[in-house]
Structure formats: structure tokens, C-alpha cells
């Protein structure tokens, strides 16, 4: 079969909200809700958590125009669409960063571990995707949980050569059920991004 080159990415630009979260952008009445606004749609199983954070540029300034997406398994380690997955949990969240302080926030459930293709399990994690003006190709990373014992045997965390960068993938517990996952686009604490 012939190979066709993948379509090139271009920046989401400053007006990504018009297309992806129009109600947030004040364009009401076109879609009833913004896509990904609710990850929990009913009596979902598992522990309710909040994942929040900010996206910082190389000067340490939070981005106020970024859009962050989350994709994760449910409390049983199943992704929406898999047989037996939780019907009250979409697994997909989308958040426009706060226009004042740049915070993004997902009200979700704590995911369970999911399989690794070569056997064994991956520690619980939430896939995170970041787009904004100035980002030419969407940035893919993962939020793991700092207090998860499974992290020690996670095959992705295990292949990070510069061990001091592992912590850039660990969401920090702030309160009982709130985890902070700050993302640094550049600089000494630059988040580990994935090419996967």
C-alpha cells in the first residue's frame, strides 16, 4: 500500500475557542454545549478527582489562550468505546484556559492502570494535549499521579533517561482529591513531551 504523507499541523492560533469551545467564547446558540465540557455524565464509578494546572511559557508566564484536552481510562481501566466501559464517563475533556490566570480544570474520576502492549500494566495516567498560539504542533504528554504506587513499574516513566524529568509528569496532590499538573513549555523544568 502506498504511503500518503500526514497533513501538516498549523498553530491553533489565538481564536481556537471559536471553533472548539464556542459557548465559552460567547458564540451561543450554535451548539448546545461545548464538546468535552463534562467528562462525568451520570453515576460514574470510582473516585472523583479534580485535575487542574497552568501552562507556562519560557518566561514563566501562564498562557491565557491555550486549550487543553484530556483523554483517559475509567475507574476500571477501560476507555470509552471498549466493551464494559463505564457508560457514565466519556473519558474526554476539553478546557479553555482561564482568561485571567490561565488555569485549566477537569472534573473527572481517577483512572485505573491500563495494559502495556508488550505485557504488564501502565500506571494510571491521563493523556494531555495542549494547543495554543505559538505552538505549531499540538503537544502530547501524560499526567501521572505522584501518590500512585504503580509509577515505579510504569514502562513509559521507566524509559526516561534524564531521571530528574520524571517529576514533570507527576501531578501533585494539593488537597484530598485535587491534583495539580503544571505544564512548562520551555526552560529548566520543561515538561517531557511525547512523540507517540
Amino acid at each position, binding site marked *: 500500500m502506498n504511503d500518503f504523507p*500526514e497533513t501538516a499541523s*498549523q498553530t*491553533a492560533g*489565538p481564536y481556537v475557542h471559536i471553533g472548539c469551545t464556542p459557548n465559552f*467564547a460567547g458564540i451561543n446558540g450554535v451548539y448546545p454545549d461545548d464538546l468535552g465540557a463534562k467528562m462525568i455524565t451520570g453515576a460514574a464509578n470510582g473516585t472523583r478527582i479534580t485535575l487542574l494546572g497552568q501552562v507556562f511559557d519560557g*518566561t514563566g508566564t501562564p498562557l491565557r489562550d491555550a486549550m487543553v484536552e484530556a483523554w483517559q481510562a475509567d475507574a476500571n481501566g477501560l476507555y470509552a468505546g471498549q466493551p464494559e466501559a463505564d457508560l457514565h464517563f466519556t473519558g474526554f475533556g476539553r478546557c479553555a484556559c482561564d482568561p485571567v490566570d490561565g488555569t485549566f480544570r477537569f472534573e473527572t474520576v481517577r483512572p485505573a492502570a491500563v495494559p502495556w502492549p508488550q505485557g504488564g500494566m501502565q500506571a494510571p495516567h491521563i493523556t494531555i494535549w495542549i494547543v495554543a498560539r505559538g505552538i505549531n504542533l499540538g503537544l502530547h504528554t501524560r499526567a501521572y499521579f505522584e501518590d500512585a504506587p504503580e509509577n515505579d513499574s510504569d514502562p513509559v516513566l521507566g524509559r526516561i533517561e534524564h531521571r530528574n524529568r520524571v517529576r514533570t509528569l507527576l501531578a501533585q496532590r494539593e488537597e484530598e482529591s485535587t491534583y495539580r499538573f503544571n505544564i512548562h513549555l*520551555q526552560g529548566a523544568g520543561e515538561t517531557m513531551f511525547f*512523540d*507517540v
Partner: protein
Amino acid sequence: MPDKTNNTPPKGGYAARLPANHPVALYPPYRTSVKRSPQAAPLSFPSTISEETGPVFGHSMLGPLDGDLLRNFGPQDQTAIGPRIIVHGRVQDQFGRPVAGALLEVWQANAGGRYRHVKEGYIAPLDPNFGGCGRVITDADGRYELRTVKPGPYPWPNGPNDWRPAHIHFSVFGAGFAQRLITQMYFEGDPLIPLCPIVRTINDAAAVARLIAPLDKPHTLPMDALAYRFDITLRGRRQTLFENRMEGL
């Protein structure tokens, strides 16, 4: 010869993304990229279930006018101002298989080059009948069609006198989160394309050319709308060894 087995996505991992098909992260003439571009090499690993699954969006999610930007914002009997166009095409993966059920979300400036957004500062007027967003889901053959107005070019604060070529932003969901893509479609013949610092973040001329939609005269609606064709290629999954054997039988 297209047959049904060809359209079933294989079960192997996603083929690695080729950087040459994409923009560079740091391109100083696009000023905002300077402090927003990662500098360390990304971590590579074979795709897992976390990247091979993704949210599924059903056609039932769509309203009847979601793909018609001419009419989805203004009062019922009115349409947006500007050149009426159809934008259509096919979404396929890198092996040529159609991507059915792909959600495409689009956003754009109005015919005068003005966005409906609080941060927009261009003096061109808003069009009361144009919101600027639309969405569509591809059919079984990966095809989609939108109706809108041709957006105007607009100036933007980058260099002292930078203008964006006319463009439509596309956000694309395939079957797996690894396929997630945001891009921009340009229009054939626009002299601003080669001058644009955002376009120039892409080094490969062929990759830029694939973002430029040609006029599709046969698809034009006479006395109604011109048509432009924009095909999109997403990453694809390789066959597993087992599937290869099956096909060889």
C-alpha cells in the same frame, strides 16, 4: 481494488510521525513560537491503548446546520455576507484508508477578515449573520462537506506589517488520540501564502502545497457557491504480524 477488508483499520501500533511533514517548533519570525516552543527532544515509545483509542462522536451529536456556516448563526431567513463557498474533501489515513466518523471542527474569520472574539482588534466589521464555527463528521468513505463564506485575509501583530492569507482552521479527531491534529486550510492562488510566517514554519514545500485547497469547478453549485477541495491525511496503524499473515493467505 477497494474492498471491505481494506477499510477496516488494522490493529498494530500507529506509524511514527515524520517531523518533515510538520512545522518546526521554533521559528523566530513567528514571534510567539520563541517562548512557547519546547527545546528538549520528545520521548518516543510505541503507541499503546491510551493513544490507539479516542473519543467517539456520533452523527446524532450534530445539529442540522452545524456544517453550514452560512446559516448556523444568524436569524432563520438570513445568510452570512461574502462569497459563498463549499469546502469538501476526504479524510484518509497515511495508508489511504478512509477515516469514517472523523469529527472536523472549523473556525474562521468572516468575509472581511474579522473574527467574532473578545481579543479581536481588527477594524473590519462583524457580520451579524456569521458566527465563524462549524463542524461535520465524515461518512463511511471519509467524505465531508461544509458550506461557508470565503474568509478575508487579515493583519496580525507579529512583524510590523504581517497579513494572514485567507484560511480556515480545522481541528480533526480520527479514531485514535494519536491522530489528533489541528491545521489550517488555504486557498489556491492567494499571494499571501508564501509570505506568511505561520505557513513558513513548515520547511517542506510539498507539505505546504497540501494545505492549499484548489478550486473544484465540477463541484461548484451553479448560481450559488464555488467549491474548494481539501483532503486531509491522518496517521495510520500498521498491521500486526498476524494480520499480515491473514492477508497473505
